[in-house]
């Protein structure tokens, strides 16, 4: 894995209907960091991820991946270093088998088929679903689909993993399993989520977004325990940091 940074410099983006989704955000994420991007609905988190991956191009500002400024000419090259897992795994899994979905990326890179096979097996092993490789994606449970979607980007051997709401619609056991998988990755991780307990568990650093701007950027525990800040952003402190719901006692 090459040492590099992921940087957003003064990013602006407005949708065609005029909604200013990202409004001058800047950040710099270092190699190996796990960064949670949190905020209320409509804060601009998903738009920011789309700007980072080049799905959308910023109206102003620049995205820099590994010292290279993202533009249309180098997008294909830069995207090899980014692995984005979409919020809805059904958007990502469209082949007839899990194997073919995981092989889709490496095959597009024109890698030899034996190597593609190695990558597929390795990616599926990393997320613990090698036994599902010949199953059809639509037959999988939500947790298995999520794991398959993550495997489909791991097979590209990205330096940076970008995950949009990875624990949404997962049952507690699948969520815990996914967190264990994510915790085991050494990649740079950029995670947007409303699951603040997961963010607290996985991420060392948190960026809080409100109205397309970053209103806080700092160590996860410090940010997530700041009740005033959380309320300002339309959020609540993680449940694990809140007081006892029965006796009302403060968390110690």
């Amino acid at each position: 894995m090459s040492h590099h940074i992921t940087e957003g410099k003064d990013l602006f983006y407005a949708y065609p209907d005029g909604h200013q989704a990202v409004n001058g955000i800047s950040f710099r994420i270092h190699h190996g960091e796990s960064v949670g991007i949190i905020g209320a609905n409509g804060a601009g988190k998903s738009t920011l991820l789309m700007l980072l991956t080049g799905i959308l191009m910023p109206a102003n500002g620049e995205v820099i991946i590994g010292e290279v400024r993202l533009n249309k000419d180098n997008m294909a090259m830069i995207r090899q270093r980014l692995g984005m897992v979409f919020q809805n795994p059904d958007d990502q899994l469209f082949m007839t088998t899990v194997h073919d979905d995981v092989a889709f990326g490496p095959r597009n890179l024109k890698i030899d088929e034996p190597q593609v096979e190695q990558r597929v097996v390795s990616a599926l092993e990393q997320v613990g679903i090698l036994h599902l490789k010949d199953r059809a994606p639509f037959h999988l449970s939500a947790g298995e689909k999520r794991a398959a979607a993550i495997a489909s980007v791991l097979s590209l051997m990205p330096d940076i993993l970008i995950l949009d709401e990875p624990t949404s619609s997962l049952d507690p056991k699948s969520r815990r399993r996914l967190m264990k998988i994510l915790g085991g990755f050494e990649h740079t991780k950029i995670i947007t989520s409303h699951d603040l307990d997961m963010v607290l568990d996985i991420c060392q650093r948190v960026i809080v977004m409100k109205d397309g701007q970053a209103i806080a950027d700092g160590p996860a525990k410090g940010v997530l325990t700041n009740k005033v800040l959380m309320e300002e952003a339309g959020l609540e402190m993680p449940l694990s940091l809140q007081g006892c719901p029965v006796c009302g006692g403060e968390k110690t």
Partner: protein
Amino acid sequence: MSNIVNAMYNIRQFDELARRDSLIHRMHPLAKLLATLVYTVLLVSYDKYATIALLPFVFFPVYVAAAAKIPLEPLLKRLLYIEPMIVGIGLLNPLFDHGTVVVLGYAISSGWLIFLSIFLKGTLAVTSALLLIATTGMDGVALSLRKLMVPKIFVLQMMLTYRYISVLLEEAARTVQAYDLRAFSSQRLKREVWGPLLGQILIRTMDRAQRIYDAMCLRGFSGEYCIGKAARPGWKDIIYVMTWGVLSAAFRGINLPLWLGNLLTGAGK
């Protein structure tokens, strides 16, 4: 609603059938495609009055379905969807062609004979195409088409259309379900909601298709649908193509039912 869900199930059922393991499934996709192509070309090359001579062509789909253990029900269901089109194409002949032809000593309306010929040819050709998909899968068919130098843009179009059908059906099922749950008074879709619902389905499908396309681009998709590489065809595959090529040509060259009839009745002596 249940019709849409059934349609989704049917599409996926063929994908699942293609993942089974059998003698036919293990054949190289190119061999299956070539055998089906040769069979279909020879089948449709008969003159417009051919009916009884077509009967030996039943062997190919029957053999493939039996050897691949393809259940009849999904196959016949799909065939039933297509049959109205085949009947529609053939049905004009009895209306406009009032001539007569003599078959086995009986005078028969030539229009109806042409209709029967079109019906048989259409049914057999569609059945063999369905069996090709049920034993090879769309990916395998696409791979074979590329091997036959079919331009990648056509193969891509075919594959994306096939994928888009599932996306369209999923979004249609969700939209109709949302309507059903709140349309307490009526079971059927009211005419006045057809427009808004269709518009909703179209917009949602396009959004979904865009997200899928984004996901594809993020994984290096650049206009070519890379399906992987199948192993080189082996001698079994060559024998398969040759056998069905020779048999189809023999069926085409020799009127087997007539020959058998003559043999049994001694009419040819």
